[in-house]
């Protein structure tokens, strides 16, 4: 049995029956990483020793009678999420040698649930990007076609699942950074409702949009991971004090009568034909399963991308000000005057895309431009949110393509940031509205690259999103196809 091919739920079942140990499972994962990661580059840091110690501890807990769906299961954590005592770089040179002094709440919760951390996954620097080409260290390759990107910014987390390097991963999603790489890598990725999961200890990109999300091979795996990390955190004022439903037990069941809205604005000119067809046939599968499908309209969709880039960059320009070389991280030009030190440190530590966004955001907030840019964007954001409220007054979920194309070639869009920004055209609105959204595989294009289907729900109705996705997953076989060796 190839342990690395197990899903979270399969691994959990074998661990529960004591047919395998966490040490075996973790050992297999680490070995797989060692064998494949020199080409894939999913990981920035592999924490082999920590992982084996945690695996032993998990086995000991189980021997004492403890149980749990993640107890002893190997996971990877996106490198923008803090892990105490383990290097956390956010994919940036400016934090190259930064060892986190505390655990993010999501890290803490995963470890408390008994998950085993095998390493920190690669990402676009400070989670800014849609291809993981903006990492300050290395470009992650798509396991389905190593000449292509894995998507981004959680490309490392997505590739690690697709390459069977561990059972689950955490990503972060500010404008689509969990869902779009999930689509590119043929796995399942979920962005929960804003406020559902704590952001404490997650390196901030755009505070009002960021959310941590689980990635796994199946909907069930994501449900297990989300159940572990969701809930109110007193350290994050924007996390919401609402009970967390038992996502896994709510998965099964008929979706007969589920009202599914298909927004006409999401089937645009220039979309890859294979993607369009795959999504349309996925909708027919849902219909066959009893869903009531109707076309709906989200009229402000065309403004989502510019709105996002104003709000996200404005917040980013402020959030990234703390990387100044004073307290931690890179410091350059120490012998110079203060201003020079700031300039050298930030010029040397940040990559091109990060600088571009800081400049955009600084401009959008500066005196005389605030009203025209940032404030206007906030108003449009409200309109976009109202679009969704309107649709959700008659629909239970919305289904769209996750991305307009399948994984593109490495380097293909790096010279044209605007082209790159359009990769998130279908995911960004969901962040602006703070809604839960999930991407799961719904087919392959003519090059054999995975295509993603996005399911979006009402705020805090992750369980409905999971149900729709699970029903579709059970009715199809896309998720069973794995990367050929």
């Amino acid at each position, binding site marked *: 049995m190839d342990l690395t091919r197990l899903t979270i739920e399969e691994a959990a079942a074998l661990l529960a029956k004591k047919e395998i140990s966490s040490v075996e499972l973790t050992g297999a994962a680490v070995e797989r990483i060692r064998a494949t990661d020199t080409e894939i580059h999913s990981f920035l840091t592999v924490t082999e020793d920590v992982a084996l110690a945690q695996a032993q501890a998990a086995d000991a807990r189980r021997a004492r009678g403890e149980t749990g769906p993640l107890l002893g299961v190997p996971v990877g954590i996106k490198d923008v*999420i*803090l892990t105490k005592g383990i290097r*956390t770089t*956010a994919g940036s040179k400016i*934090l190259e040698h*930064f060892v*986190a*002094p*505390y655990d*993010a709440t999501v890290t803490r919760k995963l470890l408390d649930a008994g998950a085993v951390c095998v390493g920190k996954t690669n990402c676009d620097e400070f989670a800014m990007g849609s291809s993981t080409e903006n990492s300050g260290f290395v470009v992650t390759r798509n396991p389905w076609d190593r000449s292509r990107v894995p998507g981004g910014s959680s490309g490392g987390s997505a590739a690690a699942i697709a390459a069977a390097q561990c059972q689950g991963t955490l990503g972060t999603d500010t404008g689509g950074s969990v869902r779009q790489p999930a689509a590119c890598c043929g796995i399942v990725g979920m962005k929960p409702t804003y406020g559902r999961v704590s*952001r*404490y*200890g*997650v*390196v*901030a990109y*755009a*505070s*009002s949009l960021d959310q941590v999300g689980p990635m796994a091979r199946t909907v069930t795996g994501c449900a297990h991971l989300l159940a572990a990390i969701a809930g109110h955190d*007193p*350290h*994050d*004022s*924007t996390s919401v004090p609402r009970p967390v439903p038992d996502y896994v037990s709510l998965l099964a069941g008929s979706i007969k009568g589920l009202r599914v809205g298909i927004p006409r604005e999401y089937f645009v000119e220039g979309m890859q034909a294979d993607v369009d067809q795959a999504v349309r046939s996925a909708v027919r599968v849902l219909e066959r399963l009893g869903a009531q499908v109707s076309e709906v309209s989200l009229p402000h969709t065309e403004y989502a991308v510019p709105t996002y880039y104003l709000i996200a960059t*404005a*917040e980013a*320009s*402020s959030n*990234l*000000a*703390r990387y*100044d070389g*004073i*307290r*931690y991280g890179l410091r350059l030009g120490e012998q110079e005057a*203060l201003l020079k030190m*700031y300039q050298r440190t930030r010029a040397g530590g940040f990559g091109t895309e990060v600088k571009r966004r800081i400049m955009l955001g*600084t401009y959008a*907030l*500066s*005196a005389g431009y*605030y009203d025209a840019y*940032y404030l206007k964007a906030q108003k449009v954001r409200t309109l976009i949110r109202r679009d969704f409220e309107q649709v959700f007054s008659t629909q239970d979920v919305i289904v769209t393509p996750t991305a307009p194309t399948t994984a593109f070639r490495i380097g293909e869009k790096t010279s044209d940031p605007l082209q790159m920004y359009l990769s998130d055209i279908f995911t960004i609105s969901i962040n602006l509205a703070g809604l839960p959204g999930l991407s799961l595989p719904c087919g392959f294009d003519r090059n054999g690259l995975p295509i993603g289907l996005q399911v979006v729900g009402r705020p805090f109705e992750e369980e409905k999103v999971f149900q729709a996705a699970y029903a579709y997953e059970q009715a199809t076989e896309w998720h069973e196809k794995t990367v050929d060796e």
Partner: protein
Amino acid sequence: MSSYETIIGLEVHAELLTQSKVFCACSTQFGAPPNQNTCPVCLAMPGALPVLNRRVVEFGIRAGLAANCQIASHSRWARKNYFYPDLPKGYQISQYELPLCLNGFIDIEDNGESKRVRLTRIHMEEDTGKNIHDAHGDASLVDFNRCGVPLLEIVSEPEIRSPQEASAYLRKLRAILQYLEICDGNMEEGSFRCDANVSIRPRGSTPLGTKVEIKNMNSFRAVERAIEYEIKRQTEVLGGGGRLVQETRLWDPDRELTRSMRSKESADDYRYFPEPDLLPLLVSDAWIEEVRRHLPELPDARRQRVVREYGLPEYDALVLTLRKDVADYYEAAVRQYRNPKALSNWVMGDLLRIIRERKLDNALVIHDWPVPPERLAAMVELIDSGEISGKIAKAVFDEMVNTGKTAVQIVAEQGLTQISDEGPILNAIDSVIAAHADKVAQYRSGKDKLFGFFVGQVMKATQGKANPQKVNDLLREKLDR
């Protein structure tokens, strides 16, 4: 009278006396070793997030109500962005377009006249850390202990017209904050800091003149002197046909002048925007009413009551109530022995002088009174009963301060009891008359002024213990016979 009119607006930063910081649980204790009171949140570690301290809002509401403000049911946090080593996040969390308190006023007294100064706003924010520059100039160190200590910023309308009014306003404001027990008002330690915006304009004209901001004043006296200097400087510049530039100037207390720090031409752009890590601040009417119910008696009310209850002059009442602890002390003494005016004189005079000399008045509450109120009261009682003279009492008071003994003890130990019996006084008078026969003759031949000489001699002979009234009466009787 100058042909210019002065316009002053004051911005006060008051450090709040909460146990923990505004956005984390770190201690606010002053004087801890550098960087001891810090955590990931106040050091701005990656991923750290602020969580609002409810008590800070309560203190803000308290101040707002005491200063007659409207308390906003809906206010908001904002980020003020700028780079400086003592500002770890690269932004300060503050309030901007929707502050907690709006449109208040404070009544002040200046030269016996009452005046109302309106407040524009009171908002909450976090303090920054502190840079320490190595004396040799080869290193700069940062202490983040103060980072995240809660502040109130209290902004007045530009309605203050003189340095004296500015000082009266600050004293009153500090008194209010101290009565509320939310700020210790220590200007030297920087827990009560003031920036002044000063401009002048030709008397009778309406548009405001070019405004200069003065910083770095760490005493009431410094505020007065700095504004005085600035008025004079601005008057000279304009009088000489020059033009003023909008700038920030620092008060140099050693040279007693203001000097330019930076020009506002290159105005800082703080790029304020709503803080996305904190929810909008909603304050319910019930909460406001709850805070209102627990407001203590404030300086104005207490001043009026002190006049009413003890029949003190307005001036005394003002001095005694401008600090809560002083008023508490005074009333404790009066409760012990009811001679309000005599006690007022002792408190305002000798006692406050010693408090000032020992710099005890820098603290929010004077814990270390040199003489407890009941002992001062007991001493005044000794004066009133004729046990000691007012003159002896001065010495007794000093001795109480120095030794911590009671007045009764001191009087007994040093035999300072006043002599009121006629016998010993007459004996003294007789010997003085005998010793100065010539002066007696001069007096009796009409040199009335010599009477004082005889009084002095008798007092000297009795080591000051003789009852002066008795000495007067008996001496006159003897000499005029």
